[in-house]
């Protein structure tokens, strides 16, 4: 049994007087214990909404969440709010994008780490603080004893993200969802944080769902990659398969648009033309069709199905990039 089995997860935003908007459209994917799975896509493709829906953190009002999120066989979407709350932080944790705003500005770091331990492991404050110090030490924060009493604005961005990771992993959860954990950090710190995440995840056997728009992050970390476009999974493949021969024109375009040091001088950067605003609704065809170079008539007749490929992945495309065309 998979650790996490997301089946046909849909999220529809419904605001009074407005047309409903499908942010996540029947997304399915699985995460095996200890595995690292990437959710990749550009802004607005439904990555974050997917993660919030899995955690049950979307506001009740105005959002319709359907489908199943099976965590070790239990459907999180049908769990009582109290039971779900008991699992959050203990069995499933989450790290957010902006480490400064994710920490409570008026509470010292130590208390914030301790809070999870008190909540889920029934530690008293003293014991929880002692464990917090060890946790901060484990995520590579220097002088952890002093950091315990410091406030978030007094430590650096990289250290804040480390502290958040410490908080998220405090109860040794089986699944960690990281929503763009490195976006707000500069490049050198990004690398450190990713290395740290990988190391901790390997040590504790925690499965990781990595949500990112950064293909570099995916390349270094993920076992399997799900590429989202317009709220649907358009391609799923093992990491090496994806980077070696991406089949979906969107994935192909994404990989081609990464600037490379070994490209000839003066060559223009490849770009996917248009923007997300050009999308057509999936009901009318492939959402990517207006921006696609490989578009054929079938693309505008209805949504293409997600079909297994020879490479062990899945693909939603009528006219994929041929397997022989390697990414440059």
């Amino acid at each position: 049994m998979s650790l996490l089995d997301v089946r046909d997860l849909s999220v529809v935003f419904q605001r009074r007087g407005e047309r409903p908007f499908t942010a996540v459209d029947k997304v399915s994917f699985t995460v095996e214990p200890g595995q690292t799975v990437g959710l990749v896509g550009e802004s607005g493709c439904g990555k974050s909404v997917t993660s919030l829906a899995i955690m049950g953190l979307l506001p009740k009002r105005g959002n319709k969440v359907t489908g199943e999120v099976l965590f070790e066989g239990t459907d999180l979407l049908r769990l009582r709010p109290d039971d779900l709350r008991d699992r959050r932080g203990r069995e499933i944790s989450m790290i957010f994008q902006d480490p400064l705003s994710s920490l409570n500005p008026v509470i010292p770091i130590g208390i914030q780490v301790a809070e999870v331990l008190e909540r889920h492991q029934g530690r008293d404050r003293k014991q929880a603080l002692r464990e917090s110090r060890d946790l901060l030490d484990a995520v590579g924060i220097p002088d952890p004893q002093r950091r315990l009493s410091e406030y978030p604005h007094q430590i650096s961005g990289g250290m804040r993200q480390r502290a958040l990771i410490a908080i998220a992993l405090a109860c040794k959860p089986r699944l960690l969802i990281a929503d763009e954990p490195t976006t707000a950090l500069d490049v050198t710190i990004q690398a450190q944080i990713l290395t740290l995440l990988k190391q901790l995840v390997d040590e504790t056997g925690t499965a990781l769902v990595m949500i990112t728009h950064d293909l570099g992050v995916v390349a270094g970390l993920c076992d399997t990659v799900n590429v989202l476009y317009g709220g649907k999974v358009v391609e799923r493949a093992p990491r090496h398969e994806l980077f070696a021969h991406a089949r979906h024109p969107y994935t192909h375009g994404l990989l081609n648009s990464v600037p490379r040091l070994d490209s000839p001088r003066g060559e223009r950067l490849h770009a996917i033309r248009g923007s997300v605003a050009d999308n057509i609704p999936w009901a009318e065809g492939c959402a990517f069709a207006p921006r696609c170079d490989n578009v054929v008539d079938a693309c505008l007749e209805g949504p293409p199905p997600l079909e297994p490929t020879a490479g062990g992945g899945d693909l939603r495309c009528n006219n994929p990039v041929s397997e022989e065309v390697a990414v440059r």
Partner: protein
Amino acid sequence: MSDPTTQAGTPAPRSGDDKPRPGMSERSIGLLGDRKKARLDELAQASASDRGGISLVRDAARRLRRNPVAIVGATIVALFVLMAIFAPLIAPHDPVQRFDELTKNLTVDTIPGSSSEFPFGSDPLGRDFLSRMIYGARQTLFVGVLATLIGLALGVLIGAIAGAFGGWVDVVLMRLTDVMLALPSLLLAITLVALASRSSQWTVIFAVAIVSVPIFARLLRGSMLAQRESDHVLAARALGVKERNIVLRHMLPNSLTAVIVQATLTFAVAILDAAALSFLGLGDPDINRAEWGLMLGVDGQRYFEVRPELAYYPALAIIVVALGFTLLGEAMREAIDPKNRR
């Protein structure tokens, strides 16, 4: 800088500051260098003290100490509070006692003025005016503190409930505060005092407190709602923190700063409102109690032609104390404002 030539040819400004080079105007560079050095020292000191784990409170206090407005406000407030606390020690006489040497000189159109034993002279009943002024600080502080605290407590309660629950609870509570805000505060206070069958010190305190409730409630509710949407509250939810703890530990403490600052400002208003109620004759009917508003309203008004000081001193005292609290409150608001935090 004021002298561009000293800057232009100096690749390493640090060394240039310490050792002026020959051929340049030595005085100007010395002066400039000194000033720059002093500023660098100051900066270094500031960043050094930043490094040791300072709390938000100490950070704000440090900024307060540098602000002259805060110092003036704090001095006034401190003097006022000391005067109130040590009134029995400072006051030369019993504020209630009617002195024979004063009463015998009281006529329809004379009230004894300053003398060596009674520096401020007499009040219309032959009591020592200075002692009554000093004891008046007590009364003012008492009314102000209690009214503010009661208003704060009720306002925080209402605001926190509205902000924490949201939905229809929020709507009902906020419409209630809207009704209260719709009436001018003094009018509302007068109405409330008038509702009581017998006015006393407590009716004044209560009326002034109620008037400040909607302001606190609105303020807290607004920032609670903002906190509700904040990332760290979402992060706390993602960690499975209980709703009660999210409200009490994460939303409320982050929302309180604005309310606490408002409390200092409300304090000034409470003093003014209480004085106004006394002035209008809606205050404490006890003639022995020394209260600035009462002294200004009853004695000051009635005997203004005879001895205007009876009105001037209490009025001045009220103005200065209210100003002191306002200055301190404004300075605190600036100091706590995270936008000023480095």
